């Protein structure tokens, strides 16, 4: 019944079948190439790790470190100054607040300073080429309670060695 038509064989091996295969092939190959050509993006994770590391070295057991004024992030947190300051891969902004007022004199900024505005922009409209940011608010005590806002950003893509 099924093959009653004289031209039954043509239904299986028609030019249209090859056209359909070609379309499937092109679609899948293009999809795979686009997927694997995309970078494995770890910038957001890296920014998050950076802010966590800063919080960890500023506060220990709820106590904020002494001598905040002379605080050196590279020595205290064991960060590489050359990479953070000169490679244009990272941005760090640490702000201290007491009783809701910012202690401007304690503010520390490192890396690509212009990324602060890009981080604000990223929150509203995510752009592929802009850095990925991480913002953390932590609390620490000395004789007063400090609120510390840590904003970090990473735009490290990585590259092929050759």
């Amino acid at each position, binding site marked *: 019944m099924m*093959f009653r038509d*004289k031209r*039954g*064989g*043509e239904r*299986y*091996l028609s030019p249209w*079948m090859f056209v359909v*295969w070609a379309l*499937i*092939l092109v679609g*899948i*190959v293009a999809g*795979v*190439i686009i997927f*694997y050509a995309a*970078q*494995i993006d*770890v910038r957001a*994770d*890296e920014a998050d*790790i*950076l802010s*966590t*590391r800063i919080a*960890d070295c500023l506060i220990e057991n709820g106590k904020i470190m002494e001598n905040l004024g002379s605080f050196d992030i*590279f020595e205290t947190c*064991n*960060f*590489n100054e*050359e*990479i*953070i300051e000169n*490679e244009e*891969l*990272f941005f760090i902004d640490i702000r201290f607040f007491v009783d809701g007022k910012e202690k401007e004199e304690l503010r520390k900024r490192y890396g690509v300073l212009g990324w602060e505005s890009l981080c604000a922009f990223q929150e509203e409209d995510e752009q592929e080429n802009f850095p990925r940011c991480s913002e953390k608010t932590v609390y620490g005590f000395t004789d007063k309670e400090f609120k510390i806002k840590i904003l970090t950003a990473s735009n*490290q893509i*990585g*590259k*092929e*060695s*050759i």
Partner: protein
Amino acid sequence: MNKKGVDILSSQVIFIILNVIFFSVLLIFVAKAGTGVGVKEEIYSKQIALMIDQAKQGTELTVDISELYEIAEKNEYTGRIINIDYQKNKISVNLGGNGYEYHYFTNLKSGSVSIDEQNKLLRIKV
């Protein structure tokens, strides 16, 4: 069986064989693309750099890199699989492809990273 029936049957068989070949080729292509050398080089270099940066000072990390040895062997690559540049804070992974490098931001002392080639393990002292 009449001639018409034989024709239909043979075209059906050819159709099925062509289908099997077509989808096998597609499957192999997708599977190979997913385990590509370039992808593995990128994944491992970024993973190791993030591990270094995430670890607290004094931590010792051990990473199983047997998969990297297998891939390098498949590609007949005999050079160094993992290189650390302590001056530039850079880790590079090469498995016979183009290699991939990534910066870590933590200061590491020279010799902090070693490879146990016998057990195919990467040891990192942060």
